[in-house]
């Protein structure tokens, strides 16, 4: 009997408690930087595309929502001729971000991707490509990798020594 009255009173005191609801469109919840939302393609600090069209992200994608077509530029750099993500299939698992060797593909804390038509959720390369370096401002794949491109031969990258002639006899 007493416990019934007590619970009624306790519920009544909840009238002056703070409400838990976040009034969404006006009041926005804090989205942590590591939140896995809309996927973007970033550029390196020089403003060039980071993606080298290695297909690792499309291979690791559990829902097969990434479609890439590779191309080679005149300076020897590989780049994606087309890069398409079907966000209607994407489950935002972040595997593509983990797989990417050039830190090109990244997930952002933006989850507001509502569309009235499903085909509007298919993002092409121009929709995905952003102008900045994203979460890794200083990383430039071609400056540290041993891949040769025009203007930077093998062995000329940062912290890299010239290639060893494996057939030579001199130490």
């Amino acid at each position, binding site marked *: 009997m007493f416990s*019934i009255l007590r*619970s*009624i009173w306790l*519920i*009544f005191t909840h*009238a002056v408690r*703070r*409400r*838990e*609801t976040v009034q969404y469109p006006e009041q926005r919840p804090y989205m942590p930087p590591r939140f896995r939302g809309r996927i973007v393609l970033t550029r390196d600090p020089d403003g060039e595309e980071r993606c080298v069209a290695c297909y690792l992200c499309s291979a690791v994608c559990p829902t097969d929502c990434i479609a890439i077509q590779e191309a080679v530029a005149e300076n020897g750099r590989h780049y994606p001729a087309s890069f398409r993500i079907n966000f209607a299939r994407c489950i935002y698992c972040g595997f593509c971000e983990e797989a990417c060797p050039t830190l090109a593909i990244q997930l952002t804390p933006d989850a507001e991707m509502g569309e009235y038509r499903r085909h509007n959720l298919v993002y092409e390369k121009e929709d995905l490509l952003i102008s900045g370096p994203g979460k890794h401002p200083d990383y430039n794949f071609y400056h540290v990798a041993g891949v040769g491109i025009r203007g930077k031969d093998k062995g000329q990258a940062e912290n890299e020594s010239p290639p060893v002639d494996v057939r030579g006899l001199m130490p």
Partner: protein
Amino acid sequence: MREAFVMILIILGMLVVPMLIAAADIYFERRLLALWQDRYGPNRAGPFGLLQVVADMIKIITKEDWIPPFADKPLFILAPALAVGPVLLSFAVIAVAPGIIVANLNIGLLFFLGMSSLGAYSMVLAGWSSNDKYSLLGGIRAAAQTLSYEVFMGLSLTGVVLLTGSFNLGDIVEAQRNMWFVVPQILGFIVFFIAGLAETHRTPFDLTEADSELVAGYHTEYSGMKFGMFFLGEYLGITLISALIVTLFFGGWYGPFLPPVVWFLLKTLVFIFLFILIRASLPRPRYDQLMALGWKVLLPLSLINLVITGGIALAAWG
């Protein structure tokens, strides 16, 4: 001519105002439940979400009204009408203010008790005609619950009738000019309040619906406006019981400064809010616990109340 016009106005008022309050109850219930559960509730449609009521009405009226092929058609259609009709009829005997009463019956209280018993038929018939096990179980529970709670609902009011010497609700309010009956009839009030909860089948006495065990109880098979009628009947019932509690125990229209009608409405709203608060706080008892509470606690309580009141009345008036 003028009197007839006034009478028609009163009748229309007593028909429309309870409906409006019942519609507002839905809004109050959702907002207050949300308040007590640290949420906001509907607050988007219109100012403070007030247009939510209109949206709900449009939705429920335009929904498909489907009668299942296995149902007993005439009874299936009759049941929702019975859910609303008797409750609305009961409003006829409620005295809102001096002179504002539709039917000044000298057996007003008995009329209400009779009508509330008729209301139980809506649930029993709905459960029976739906031809569905959940509905039938809900209907059986409605019958048993009404049977056991109606007994001391009447008995708890006998004290008030004893003190007043009349079944007329207007006379009962007049008798409370100096002291509200809740003071000498505190036991009667408690018993009547609990019986009222059970009568309107509100949580924690909503065993007839019991979403968690009986799908939706007696109105499982109903859709569209037929379901809406049950809904309306329930909220009308809350309004009716609140109005009756105010009339019988809390001095009806008496109160300082404000006009009588306003006092009556204010007091009624307080009890509607109390109904919602109780829904927000208490869990549903088991079926046998409900019966045990009714027969072993509340019935003896109301009998004790009756004996004490009768003894005092006898001693005072010889």
